[in-house]
């Protein structure tokens, strides 16, 4: 694949979500055809290095063919949903591609969640079969029972996804349509319930091509997949681009900084894509340095800013590293804008310019365009924007109008077209790369019999970008303390969602219109914590 960057004028106009959008010409249209091309063009190149073993593209295609046939034999038919709760590795890659091959929909269950959240996702998605790694099976069985699934429908993955190989049959099995949905990713939601963003071939392929071209990826590239593959980044920004060029993806279960640095060296990783909070931790490992790791050429991140001091430290320790800040949402299948290495100094604080196939607008509350430099909500349009939320037409209609995705993020665009994110979605807290929706957490808190009101928000955190804070008002005649609040959440949500800061108060301040004054609460708490630390220091 040529790696010269596209320009908007070299693209072709196609219809998507009722709008004209610019698309990459002569592209591979689906992830199944991407595997077909890889298995045909470079069958012996290494596709994956995983704890379960290494596989070439030819072997991966055979595994996908065998598993797809097995799923069909198990009674799943086109459009059915297969849920998996798997750590990064061979099983989950095969699951994603086998679902696409068989016309099924892949439902990724985060391994960090708790049974009540899994149960909701199983119910909502209508999954008929669930595979999980053994350590999650107790919780998955409970979730499956809660969701009304028969006990036999929730299975230890064992060799269910890697135990059968069949010769790849290419187009003898009809390829999916590029606008088919092959997965859903739960993004949590502002209404208190997670939303299932649809994963579409057209969108994934545009994002993957954008990564290949922007990062100049080649067959010699090797990427370490740290992002959980049940989310967008791992399979869209890493495994699929590697498949397009014949590179190798090395899956990583869990990141322990020193071990990860050793893996980067031992596996000759060239392309790193990690959450911003990981860079300072890698910098604490003395071996993370040039020239020992001179093979690492690409350092990408996204989701929250990397402090200038960290960028400066990276420039010193890894002077050859090309840095990229990619901004996107699950709903944009990863990137919508990318800040290039050469732009970091000149456009500090920006997330870059839109991809050649993306359009952006900054609008006011009524949806009217604002002038250059003015702050408003960022809207994005292009072939990478999801076709909607599974089973939720109201949420889809509210989030996407005339092809424009309403991101909820406050941003401005300068006179050269660079996007600056001023505030992430008001109701979303970013903790180390994981997203916590304050409304979802507030719903959970007030479901506790002793809590009458709750307000959740994020406060700055030097490593994780934000920490979760919760103010709660006890129900009448009841008492509650911080430990009980934390335990209530810990039993029901992921560990990163448990509020680090809990305050039990008599009332929560509200505006005259009844809106919780979170900004005031945030300011108060930040000042209080700073005073505590200052007192400690003196």
């Amino acid at each position, binding site marked *: 694949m040529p790696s010269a960057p596209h320009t908007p004028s070299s693209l072709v106009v196609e219809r998507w979500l009722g709008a004209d959008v610019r698309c990459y010409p002569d592209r591979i249209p689906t992830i199944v055809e991407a595997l077909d091309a890889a298995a045909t063009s470079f069958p012996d190149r290494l596709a994956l290095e995983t704890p379960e073993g290494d596989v070439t593209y030819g072997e991966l295609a055979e595994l996908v063919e065998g598993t797809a046939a097995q799923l069909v034999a198990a009674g799943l038919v086109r459009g059915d949903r297969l849920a998996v709760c798997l750590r990064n590795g061979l099983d989950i890659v095969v699951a994603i591609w086998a679902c696409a091959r068989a016309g099924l929909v892949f439902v990724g269950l985060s391994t960090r969640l708790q049974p009540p959240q899994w149960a909701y996702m199983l119910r909502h998605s209508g999954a008929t079969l669930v595979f999980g790694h053994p350590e999650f099976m107790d919780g998955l069985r409970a979730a499956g029972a809660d969701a009304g699934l028969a006990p036999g429908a929730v299975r230890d993955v064992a060799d269910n996804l890697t135990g059968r190989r069949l010769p790849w049959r290419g187009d003898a099995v009809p390829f999916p349509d590029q606008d088919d949905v092959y997965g859903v990713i739960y993004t949590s939601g502002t209404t208190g319930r997670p939303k299932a963003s649809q994963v579409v071939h057209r969108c994934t392929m545009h994002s993957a091509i954008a990564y290949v071209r922007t990062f100049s990826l080649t067959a010699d590239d090797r990427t370490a997949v740290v992002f959980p593959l049940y989310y967008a980044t791992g399979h869209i920004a890493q495994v699929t681009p590697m498949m397009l060029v014949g590179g190798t993806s090395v899956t990583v279960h869990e990141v*322990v900084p*020193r071990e990860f640095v050793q893996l980067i060296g031992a596996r000759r990783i060239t392309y790193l894509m990690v959450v911003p909070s990981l860079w300072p931790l890698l910098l604490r490992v003395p071996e993370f340095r040039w020239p020992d790791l001179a093979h690492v050429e690409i350092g990408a991140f996204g989701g929250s800013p990397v402090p200038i001091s960290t960028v400066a430290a990276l420039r010193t320790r890894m002077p050859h590293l090309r840095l990229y800040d990619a901004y996107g949402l699950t709903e944009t299948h990863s990137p919508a804008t990318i800040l290039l290495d050469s732009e970091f100094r000149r456009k500090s604080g920006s997330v870059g310019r839109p991809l050649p196939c993306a359009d952006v607008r900054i609008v006011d509350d009524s949806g009217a365009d604002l002038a250059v430099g003015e702050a408003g909500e960022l809207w994005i349009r292009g072939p990478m924007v999801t076709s909607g939320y599974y089973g939720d037409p109201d949420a889809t209609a509210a989030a996407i109008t005339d092809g424009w995705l309403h991101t909820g993020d406050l941003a401005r665009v300068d006179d050269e077209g660079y996007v600056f994110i001023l505030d992430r979605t008001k109701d979303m807290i970013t*903790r180390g790369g994981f997203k916590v929706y304050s409304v979802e957490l507030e719903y959970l808190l007030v479901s506790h019999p002793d809590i009458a009101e709750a307000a959740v928000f994020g406060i700055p955190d030097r490593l*994780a970008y934000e920490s979760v804070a919760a103010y709660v008002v006890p129900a009448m005649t009841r008492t509650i*303390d911080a430990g009980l609040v934390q335990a209530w959440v810990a039993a029901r949500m992921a*560990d*990163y969602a448990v509020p*680090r800061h809990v305050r039990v108060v008599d009332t929560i301040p509200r505006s005259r219109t009844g809106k919780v004054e979170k900004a005031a609460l945030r300011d108060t708490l930040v000042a209080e*914590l700073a005073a505590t630390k200052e007192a*400690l220091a003196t």
Partner: protein
Amino acid sequence: MNDLEPKVRGIVAAQLDVDPQRLLPGARLGEDLCVDSLSAIELTMVLEDEFDIALPEEEVAEVRTYGDVVTVVTHHVAKRA
């Protein structure tokens, strides 16, 4: 507990934003104090800064309770002296 413990307690309580009374020797960082992996790393960094010590990753990985925190900090402060 030892002479260093009150200072460790103050730092841990401030960093984790917990009532110092919850910092019993057997209090488990994950289950009882709801410390996630990022909070644990941050706490390590703060303790290293405050006591001017370096806590090896492999020792930190073995820390389960508040009592373990005090023990590992005390050990490295003594070693530095």
